[in-house]
C-alpha cells in the first residue's frame, strides 16, 4: 500500500462509492471496521487486500486501486465474510460489482484466467442453455488464448487434460451435448441483461 | 598561551576531559594525554566524578602539566570541608596549576561509596568566593596568607535544565562570586542553547559549550530519561536510528562535529568542552570533522 497522503472529500469519493453500493446491493457505509471479514477470508493470505480494507478503499474514494485489487479476482465467493458481517456486507458481491466495473472501464483483469473461465461458462450456457464440459473447456481455452496466447493455453492444458483423461476413465464425462429446448427464452434473457448493462455504461 | 589568554584572545577554545583511573595503573591515561596533547587547549581533570573514588584530581593535574598540557583542576565540595579545600588549592597553586573549576559535586548516592557522609560544608558559589579571596591573599576566615594564589576560576551551568530559572539565578551568583569561564552541561538543542547564550552574553564571562558524543539512540533515550538537564531532541535520535546500529557511533560523531562547527562558525560561544567519556581517542577525529584541526 502506498504511503502517500490521501485527500478525502465526500464530493469526489461519493459517486464511485454510490455506484459500488448500488451495483453490489451492499451498504458499505455501515462498516465499522471490526475486521471479522478479514479474519475469516479463506484467500486472505493470497489476496493482499482483505475485504475490510477493500471496503475502506472504496469508502475513502480510492477508485483506481479498488478496480485493480487482487481480492476481487481471488475471491472464491464462499460468502463467509458477509455471513459473519455484523453489518451484513457481502464483500463477494462487491467483488463481483468491481470486476464488472473494471471490465466496463476496460481495465485488464488482474487474473485473466478467472475472467476467461467465467466468461466461457456464460457463453457455453448461452449456446445450449446448459453447461457442457467439453464445449466449455474449449471456450475457456479460447478465452485463455485471447488473454495470454499459446503459452497460457499450453500451461493450462497440461493440468486440465490430465483431469479430463481420468474423468473419461471414470465415466464422469459425456460426449453428447445436453441442450435446453427453450433456448430462445434464454437468449432473450441474455439480451435483456446486455441491454441493462448497456444502459448503465 | 595560558587558558586565560586563549579565551581573552577570542580564539575558539577546545577543552576535553581526562578522567583519572581507579588504581595505580595509569598507562591508559598517559595514552589519552598523548592523544590530546597539542590538539586541545587545556584538559579538565575530573574530581571523583559521579562520586566514584579515583586518583585525586590534584595529582593527575600535576601529571598532565608535567606531560606538556595545561590542566584545569576540577574541585567538588562533596569530599572536603573548607579547610581541606583551601589546603588543596594552595597545594595546586604551588605545583603550578592555575585553572580551577568549582563544582558542588554529585551526591554520594550516585557513586560507589553510598554509605559515605557527604560533606558539602561549602558549595560551588562559596568555593568561587574562597578562590577569589585566596587570589587576594586571604583565606576564607579573612586571615592574611603568606603569598596569594593566582587562579583562573570557572564554574558550570546547565542551559537546558528544567526548570531553568533557578539555574539562571545561580549562574548570576557564580558570576558575582568570581567565575570567569563556564563549561556547560552537554547541549544538543542549538536553538535552546542560542537563547541561553543570548542571556549569558550579558555577563563578562566566557562560555564553553559541553559536547557529549551520542553513541546510540539508546544512549540518547537513556540520557533524556535519567540525566538531569540533558534533552536530546527527537530529530537527532531519529537521525541515529535511521543510520542503523552499525553507523550509530559514526552518526553521533558527525552530529557532535556538526554542532561544534556551527557553534564556531556562528560564533555562538567561546569554545567547546568535549566530554569524551571513554572515547578520548575519538576527540581528534571530532575536531577534524568540525574543521578545528
Amino acid at each position, binding site marked *: 500500500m502506498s504511503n502517500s497522503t490521501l485527500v478525502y472529500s465526500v464530493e469526489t469519493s461519493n459517486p464511485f462509492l454510490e455506484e459500488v453500493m448500488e451495483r453490489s446491493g451492499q451498504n458499505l457505509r455501515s462498516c465499522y471496521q471490526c*475486521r471479522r471479514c478479514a479474519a475469516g477470508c479463506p484467500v486472505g493470505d493470497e489476496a493482499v487486500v482483505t475485504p475490510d480494507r477493500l471496503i475502506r478503499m472504496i469508502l475513502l474514494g480510492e477508485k483506481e486501486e479498488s478496480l485493480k485489487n487482487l481480492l476481487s479476482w481471488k475471491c472464491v465467493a464462499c460468502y463467509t465474510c458477509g455471513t459473519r458481517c455484523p453489518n451484513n456486507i457481502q464483500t463477494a458481491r462487491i467483488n463481483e460489482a468491481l470486476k464488472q466495473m473494471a471490465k466496463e472501464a476496460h481495465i485488464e483483469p488482474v487474473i485473466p484466467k478467472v475472467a476467461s473461465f467465467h466468461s466461457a461458462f456464460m457463453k457455453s450456457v448461452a449456446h445450449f442453455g446448459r453447461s457442457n464440459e467439453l464445449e466449455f473447456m474449449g471456450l475457456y481455452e479460447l478465452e485463455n488464448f485471447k488473454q495470454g496466447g499459446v503459452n497460457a493455453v499450453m500451461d493450462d492444458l497440461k493440468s486440465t487434460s490430465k483431469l479430463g483423461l481420468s474423468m473419461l476413465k471414470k465415466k464422469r464425462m459425456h460426449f453428447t451435448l445436453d441442450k435446453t429446448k427453450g433456448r430462445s427464452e434464454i437468449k432473450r434473457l441474455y439480451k435483456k441483461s446486455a441491454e441493462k448493462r448497456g444502459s448503465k455504461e | 598561551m595560558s587558558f586565560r589568554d586563549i579565551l581573552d584572545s577570542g580564539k575558539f577554545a577546545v577543552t576535553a576531559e581526562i578522567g583519572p583511573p581507579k588504581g595505580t595503573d595509569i598507562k591508559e591515561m598517559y595514552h589519552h594525554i598523548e592523544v590530546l596533547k597539542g590538539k586541545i587547549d587545556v584538559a579538565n581533570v575530573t574530581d571523583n566524578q559521579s562520586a566514584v573514588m579515583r586518583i585525586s584530581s590534584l595529582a593527575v593535574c600535576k601529571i598532565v602539566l608535567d606531560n606538556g598540557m595545561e590542566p584545569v583542576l576540577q574541585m567538588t565540595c562533596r569530599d572536603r570541608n573548607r579547610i581541606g579545600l583551601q589546603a588543596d588549592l594552595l597545594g595546586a597553586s604551588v605545583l603550578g596549576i592555575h585553572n580551577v573549576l568549582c563544582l558542588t559535586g554529585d551526591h554520594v548516592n550516585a557513586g560507589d561509596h553510598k554509605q559515605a557522609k557527604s560533606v558539602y560544608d561549602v558549595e560551588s558559589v562559596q568555593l568561587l568566593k574562597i578562590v577569589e579571596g585566596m587570589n587576594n591573599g586571604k583565606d576564607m576566615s579573612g586571615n592574611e596568607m603568606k603569598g596569594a594564589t593566582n587562579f583562573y576560576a570557572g564554574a558550570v551551568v546547565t542551559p537546558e535544565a528544567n526548570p531553568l530559572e533557578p539555574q539562571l539565578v545561580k549562574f548570576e551568583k557564580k558570576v558575582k562570586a568570581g567565575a570567569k569561564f563556564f563549561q556547560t552541561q552537554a547541549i544538543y538543542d542549538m536553538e535552546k542553547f542560542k537563547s541561553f547564550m543570548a542571556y549569558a552574553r550579558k555577563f563578562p564571562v566566557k562560555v564553553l559549550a559541553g559536547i557529549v558524543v551520542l553513541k546510540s539512540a539508546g544512549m540518547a533515550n537513556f540520557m533524556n530519561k535519567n540525566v538531569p538537564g540533558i534533552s536530546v531532541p527527537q530529530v537527532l535520535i531519529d537521525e541515529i536510528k535511521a543510520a542503523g546500529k552499525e553507523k550509530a557511533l559514526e552518526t553521533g560523531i558527525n552530529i557532535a562535529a556538526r554542532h561544534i562547527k556551527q557553534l564556531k562558525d556562528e560564533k555562538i560561544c567561546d569554545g567547546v568542552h568535549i566530554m569524551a567519556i571513554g572515547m578520548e581517542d575519538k576527540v581528534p577525529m571530532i575536531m577534524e570533522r568540525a574543521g578545528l584541526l
Partner: protein
Amino acid sequence: MNDKISSPKKGSVVIVGGGIGGMQAALDLADSGFKVHLIQKDPSIGGTMVMLDKTFPTGDCSMCMISPKMVEVGRHINIDVHSLAEVASVEGQPGDFKIKVKLAPRYVYPEKCTGCGDCEIKCPKKIPNEFDQGIGKRKVIYSLFAQAVPNTRAIDARHCLYLTKGTCRLCEKACKAGAINYEDKERVIEINAGAVILSPGLDRYDATVRGELGLGRWKNVVTSLQFERILSASGPFKGEVKRPSDEKHPRKVAWIQCVGSRDSHNANPWCSSVCCMYATKQTIIAKEHDKNIEPTIFYMEMRAFGKDFDKYVERAKNEYGVRYQRAMISAVREEPETGNLMLRYADEAGKLIDESFDMVVLSIGLEPHKDAAKFAKTFGIETNPYLFAKTSPLCPVQTTRDGIFVTGTYQGPKDIPDTVMQGSAVAGEAMALLSEARGTETVHKELLPERDVENEKPRIGVFVCHCGTNIAATVNIDEVVAAAKQLPDVAYVTNTIYACAQDNQDMIKQVVKDNNLNRVIIASCTPRTHEPLFQETIRDAGLNKYLFDLADIREQCSWCHMGQKEEATKKAVKIVKMSVAKSRLQKPLKTDYVGVTPACMIIGGGIAGMTSSLSLADQGFDVHVVEMEKELGGLTRNLFRTLEGNDVQEFLKATIAKVQAHKRITIHTNTQVKKTEGFVGNFKTALSNDTLISHGAIIIATGGTEYAPAEYLSGESDKVITQRDLEKRIASGEKFNPRARFVMIQCVGSREEPNQYCSRVCCQDAVKNAIAIKEQNPGSQVIILYRDIRTYGLREDYYKKARDIGVMFVRYDVDKKPQVEKDGDKLKVRTWDYMLNKELMIDADWLVLSAGLRPHPTTEGTGKMYKVTRNQDGYFLEAHVKLRPVDFPTEGIFVCGLAHAPKNLDETITQSLAAAGRAGVILSHERLAVSGIIAKHKKELCMSCLGCFRVCPFDSPYIGEDGKVAHNEVKCMGCGICAAICPAKAFQVNNFRDDQILAMIDAASECESGVVGG
C-alpha cells in the same frame, strides 16, 4: 399523575424480581414505611450478581457484598419474599393494584426447613447445575447456591425420582425437621398493592447460535459467565483457573468481545454496556489467581465509559500485562491434538495472524429475559422493538403504565451500580406516588421491658447446635456440652438439632426465664446470618440483645475441618471457651435514638438537584434547593435534544415551573452554603443569604462544567466550535451550507493525562449532531475522528444510523492525534487512517470539538466542607462503587448527577431519583437508632494525637472546643478503626473491648500471664 383515584392508596409495593436492583428497591421501601412483596421466579433471590466471582474495580467478592443484603431482605419484618412465584395478572390503578401471584410448589415446608442441607446429601440424582452454567452438577432437592435466601431447599419436580417415578423418598428420611412435603400444590394468592416495580433482570445471548465460535462444540470455549464460575471459589474448580477439556491450567487465554452484541445482522444490535469491563476484570482476576496466564482481549472498541473505567483498563494493560488486540475474530477452530484453539485475526497493519490459545472466553452480551414479551403482556406495559421495557430518557424508570416502574437490565443493558441506582430511583418514585400511605401497612414489634442485670453475677446459658449433621457429623457435640459445663459462670448447657428452628427459639426463651439466665451463647453457624435472629430471641425473653454471643463452630470449625473429628471437637471446645470468656465481660448496651428533621437540603439547582427536590417534595418532605447562580437549570440549559430526540428545553422549563410551584420546595438562588453543622437527621446550615435551615439530609448535586478546549486552533478560528455550540446552532434553526464540510474530533480534553477519564457524553453528542446535520443536508460531509466510539447500550442504534446515512468515522490514536491547520477561512485536518495505513487530508468548513466534562470548581470546597472524598479526577467518591452509588460514607449525605461523574441526562435523572429515594429512607423516620456497638472515647487517656481523627471514615472524632479530641457517638458506626489506631487506647468498642478480646485470647491459649516458656 392520576388525580382521579377514588379509593385510598395502598402502602405496599410489589417488586417483581429479586436481583440486586429489586433488593435495593425493596430495602429502601421497607426501611421507609412501605410493605414490600418481593416476587421471585427462582427458588432464591440474588439474580445475576450472585453468580459473579468478583466485581471491579475493587476486586470485592461479589457474594460477600450481596449476601448481607440478601439476609437483610430475607429477615426484614416488612418484606415478604415469595420465591418460586410468578405474577399472573395485574388489575387496578396506580395506588391500588390487585396482583394475582402464582406460587409453584416447593415440596418443602419453608417454615420447617432450616436449610441444613442433609436432604441434599442423600438425594441420589444429579443434574447439570444451571447456576454454574452447566459446568458442574447439582442435586434434585437443592438450593440455588449455598447462601440462598430464603434458605430453604426446593425439589425440582421435573427430575425428582419420587415425583416422576414414585420411588425414592430419601430426602424425606434424611430430613430431621420433617420439612419434606411431596403433596405440595401450585397456589394462587392475591396481593393488593399501591405500586409495582419490575426488575426481572436479564438473560444472556446464546452463543451456540453462532456455530463458528465453537461454544458447545470445542470444550475449551466457554462463556464469560462460565468463566466467572470457573474463577469463583464456590464454582466447579474451586477458584482454580482450569480449562474444561483436561482441567489443565491454561496459559494463553483469549477473550472475544461483542459476542451477540453490536451485530444487527446475526445477533443483537445493541451494545451490552458491561462486557468490556467485565472482560477486563476477568483478565485481572485470572492473573491474580494464576500469574502464568497471558490474557488477550480481542475487541472492536474499548467501551470504558464509566467512572474510573479507563483507569482500570490502563491498570490491566500496564500492571497486569493484559494484551488488548483491536480485531474481531471470525471463527474459533480447535486444534485436534491439543484441544487448543486457533484464532485468526487481522492486526492493525492488516496482517493476518494465526495464534493459538489454550482457552477462549466469549464475552456474551445481555438480552431481555426470555419471556420478556409475555411479561410485558401480563403487566400491560409497552416494550421497545427489542423487548426491553419502554421508557423515556426523561422518565427513565417509568413504564408506559402509570404506577408500574422498571429498574435494572429490563430497562436496557447496564452494570451493577446503574442497576442499584435505578433500584433506589424506583423506590423514590414509588415513595412519591404513595407518600400519603406511608406507614399504613408496615408492622412494628412490641417488646417486653428489659430486665436489669447490671449488678447480677453472670449466669450463662450455652446452646450447642447440631445444625442437622452439618456440625454434628464432625464435632462431638456431647464433648462440647460437657466441656462447656465446666466453664466459670456457665449455669445451663444443652444441645439442640437446629437452634434456629422456630420451636427451638421458643425453647430458648423458656430456658432463659426458667433458669434466670443473664447471658446466652449459641454455638452454631455464622453471626453474619444468624446473630440478629438470636439477638431478637433473647430480647423477647427480656434480655438486652447485646448479652448474646454466637460461637461459630460451623464455618470456622466443622466445615473447614471435615473428617478431622478429634481436632475439630477440640477446636469447637476452644471456640466455646472463648465465647464464654467474652460473654462474662459483656454488659448490656443502650440503644440511643436521635430525632430527625424531615427536610432535605439540596446543593445545586440543575436538573439533578431539581429532580431530587421534586421527588422528595412529592414524598412529603420540605426541600431547600441552594443554587449559586441566579437561575435554575445548570448545564441542562445548554442541552437541546437528547439522542433519542426529546426536547430538553421544554422539559427543563416544565421542571423549573414544577419546582417553583411546589409548596414544599424553597429555592435559594444566588446563594451558597456557608457552613453546615450536625449529623444525619439533624443538620443545621447557614446560607450566604443569612438564612439558617434545619434539615435531616443533604444531597450534593453541584454538577460539572464543560471543558473549554485550547487544542486544535480553538479560539484562533471562529470555525472551530464545540459540540455544544453546534447543538445550539442546530437547535436555533441555523441553516448550514448544503455542502458544508464538518470534521468532529472526539476526546478533546478527555482520556489523556491529566484527565485520564472518559466524559461519557461526547460520543452520543457527536452522533446526535452528525445525524442532525446529515438529515438537514444529506450532501454535507461529516467526518468524526474518534478513539473509540462509546455509544453504549441502546445508543448503538444511533451510531449505526449515523454510519448508514453517510457519516464517516475515522479512528485516531492518542499518539497520533489529528493535525489542524488554517487555510484561509477554511481548515485543513490531517489524520491517519488505520485501515489504509495512510494519512488522510480533509478540508473542513467547520471543526467541531467534542470537549469533555470537568468537575464543577466548587467541588473541592464542598468536598472539604462535608469531608467527603473525591477521586483522582476531582469527582465525588461514593461510599461503594457497586452497591452504594449515591451514598457517601458519612450518613445522611448523598450525591447525584455530574458531581458524581460524567453521565447522560437520563442517567442524571435516575441518579437524582435514587438520591431522593435514599434520602427519603432517612427522612421518613421520626427518630434514628444508634447502634450499641460503637466506640467509646475516654478523654482522660487521650493525648490528642489525632490518629483517630484522621482515619475515621465517618468523621465521628472531632477536635472539641478545648482543643482536644472528642467523639460524636451518633456518627460512629462501630468499625473499630479508631480503637486500633489509638496509641493511648482511649477508644474501646463496645462488646469488642480490649479486655474482652484479651480474655478470649487467654481462653484460647490458656495462657494466664505474660510469661511463656518459663
